[in-house]
């Protein structure tokens, strides 16, 4: 609380930068966030233009099997003679898409459930919490495996399965935040001006709960990519003809002693993505926290 800030002269106040330029400043000042942004931009570019960028057809078994990295094949070839770099580039699309879309779905469903439960309490809370307890009793991955087994394999089913497995994490966090925020006096104050329940939840409570939800979301993107990888590893992922990072990693298992590159490079791709998302998530959290803004 700085009393000087309250007395800031008008010129200082008027020069408050817009949202975009403020975000840009923040990113440029934060080296980790900058790295994250650059890596994610490259990955997104690869995801969109993957087939055009890859040096070879990812499914073309035209080369010698299990070649180490060389100029012709920077990341080597796999057991069927396919170019690993091409497969990784093309696989970016599915891996990123699964990671982002599952978290978006899980966040939307989970936060909605959690906010409703925390805000209304009573039987709504009981129903939601019992469901969450039930889900919590099983490891997320077991739930995803079970759902894919029921729904069948394929991209959409994998996304549905992984997002449902993550719903409880978001619901629990959102509920906890709402339980504490709804006790605040500014919520009572919002009620005294005639705001409806929906409005109070959406406009007054949720903006105060973003920080832990963003953290959970960035962590979950990582787990979702790994989840897809794990499902693929078990043969429960996307169709075998689609190269995904997880699938490539899974296939490398049998050759791990003879061909280190088959496992290391898809693993590195996953790690880089996850790390970048975490860096960027931290920056986003700082950006959204207006309480951190010192003066206007």
């Amino acid at each position: 609380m700085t009393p000087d800030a309250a007395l800031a002269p008008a010129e200082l106040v008027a020069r408050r930068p817009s949202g975009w330029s403020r975000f840009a400043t923040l990113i440029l000042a934060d080296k980790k966030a900058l790295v994250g942004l650059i890596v994610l931009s490259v990955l997104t570019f690869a995801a969109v233009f993957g087939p055009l960028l890859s040096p070879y057809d990812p499914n073309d078994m035209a080369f010698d099997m299990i070649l180490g990295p060389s100029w012709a094949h920077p990341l080597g070839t796999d057991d069927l003679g396919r170019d690993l770099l091409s497969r990784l580039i093309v696989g970016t699309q599915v891996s990123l898409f699964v990671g982002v879309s599952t978290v978006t779905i899980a966040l939307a469903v989970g936060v909605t459930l959690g906010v409703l439960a925390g805000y209304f309490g009573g039987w709504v809370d009981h129903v939601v919490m019992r469901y969450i307890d039930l889900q919590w009793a099983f490891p997320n991955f077991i739930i995803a495996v079970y759902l894919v087994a029921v729904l069948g394999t394929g991209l959409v089913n994998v996304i549905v399965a992984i997002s449902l497995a993550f719903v409880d994490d978001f619901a629990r966090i959102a509920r906890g935040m709402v339980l504490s925020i709804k006790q605040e006096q500014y919520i009572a104050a919002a009620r005294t001006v005639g705001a409806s329940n929906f409005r109070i939840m959406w406009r007054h409570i949720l903006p105060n709960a973003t920080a832990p939800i963003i953290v959970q979301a960035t962590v979950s993107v990582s787990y979702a990519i790994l989840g897809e990888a794990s499902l693929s590893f078990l043969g429960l992922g996307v169709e075998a003809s689609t190269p995904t990072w997880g699938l490539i990693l899974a296939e490398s298992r049998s050759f791990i002693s003879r061909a280190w590159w088959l496992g290391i490079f898809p693993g590195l791709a996953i790690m880089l993505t996850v790390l970048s998302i975490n860096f960027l998530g931290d920056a986003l959290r700082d950006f959204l926290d207006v309480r951190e803004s010192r003066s206007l």
Partner: protein
Amino acid sequence: MTALLEIKDLVVEFATESGSLRAANAVSYDVSPGEIVAVVGESGSGKSVTALSVLRLIPEPPGRIAGGEILFQGSDLLALDDEAIRRVRGKSIGMIFQEPMTSLNPVLSIGRQMTEAMRLHLGLSAAQADQRAVDLLKMVGIADPESRLKAYPHHLSGGMRQRVMIAMALSCEPPLIIADEPTTALDVTIQAQILELMKDLCRRLGVALVIITHNLGIVARYADRVNVMYAGSVIERGPAQEIYRHPGHPYTVGLLNSVPRLDRPRGSPLEPIPGNPPDLVSLPPGCPFQPRCGVATAGCADALPGLEAVAAQHWSACFRSRQVYEGALT
């Protein structure tokens, strides 16, 4: 003149582990248009609970409005459905809370919070609401209002935040504002400014004001009429000056003796009221103040005194109110 707000025999109960607690026990008071009414009492006397009941903001459960009527402009607020009471909140009755530090949402800009009620109730466009917010901030004495709209609560001092709260309460031009301990959290110099501002604005705009407070200094200076509450009931009511000079209830006498006053000789000791407020779960059958009262008689523990007139427009709920009023018992 017909009353703007009339609270009749309001009973509010809270379920607790040791039984049902009567936070408001047949509270009645009224407010005329444009009038400033103070409600005075210790913590737990039921003054805030009564005020929150007017806007139906008692959390249910554990709270429950068990009886009575709250008439606002002739219609019973307790009979309204959720939708209808929402249209009353902010539009017809504004509310100002005790803690300006916590009454503003920390992550929303001042402008966004101020315009909410106006857009909800007056149907203003974003630009119109912003313009009106600027006018309101000017009215409550905030410099450079245009840029303040973009500020967040932590950029403002406590006094400025309370000014913002006042501006918000006035935004839809409600005929009544309820201020629950509006200055308790502010330092003394700011307190006077804020109270002056509230009084001045209410007089100018013809808004009635209910000030809930435990500070009798505020009462003497700013209120037209006073209701003194004890253990969930109004025990004395009358014009502010009159009650200050000729209190008609031993509790009010005790309150007045326990605050420093400039009209007393310097160095005279403050006399606290002995004992504690009664347990609201199991109230004794007689006068609730009787165990702490210095002038109680044998009959006080058996029967509950009702409000009786001691002078014109001045009532007191004490069997010996006449003697107290005349100063015969001190």
